[in-house]
């Protein structure tokens, strides 16, 4: 039997990642997990992302978060 609160937490965690799909024209798109969350879940994902990026930056030798690394990766790949 599925546990709705665990499923919700997994959905939030899935939305926290810095990975985002890209449109054919290069635009960065919404994460499908974010779309599946209700308003309260999206706000929770925002706050969790804020904490996650602080942790990532603190663990990174250059102080860069997953977001920063993702963007720099896109720039370097052209």
């Amino acid at each position, binding site marked *: 039997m599925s546990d709705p609160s665990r499923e919700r937490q997994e959905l939030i965690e899935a939305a926290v990642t810095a990975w985002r799909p890209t449109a054919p024209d290069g635009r960065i798109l919404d994460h499908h997990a974010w779309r599946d969350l209700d308003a309260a879940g999206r706000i929770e994902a*925002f706050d969790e992302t804020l904490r996650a990026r602080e942790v990532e930056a603190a663990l990174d030798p250059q102080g860069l978060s*997953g977001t920063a690394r993702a963007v720099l990766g896109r720039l370097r790949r052209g």
Partner: protein
Amino acid sequence: MVTDLDHHLPAIVAGDPDAFGRWVAGAERRIRLSLRSFAARVDTEAVVQETLLRVWQVAPRFQPDGRPDGLLRLAVRIARNLAISEVRRARVDPVEVDQLERQALAWADAHLARAAEPDPLLRQLIARCRELLPDKPARALAQRLTAAGDRPDAVLAEEVGMKLNTFLQNVRRARQALLDCLQSQGVTLPEAP
């Protein structure tokens, strides 16, 4: 101490992505926080990334106005405009769009000048806390960090031999364990204002 991130501008204009990375390290949190009023309506992670890409593109044409953090202020405007475009595209009630915009502007007026103070102990402590993580959360977190947003979690989970839901639970456990460990040593991450 408040630092003006515009000191990175000459190198950014010269096309140095490392300098842009240093600027992003100081600017990202404030750009993200400026979008909090939109969090239930737009995927702010996508907006933050799109904003940073646009800042890189427009930086060579940016004219400082003499006040500190000009490029950051521009970035916050770009982020707000992108978020407004997204909520309009989603056919959100115009009254609500205006309200979201007003909240974002009020946040920027109140908080933009406050640079997040990096805690000199944080990096040291968090590295020690990381060593204490159990194996599976440690592996999941390491995978997320190494991937740096270039692969979806389904791929990362497969790479470490975990089911996607197990991988997500382990990443969450790892982060929570790090935060608990930091807290036990008297360090808490700054909350959103």
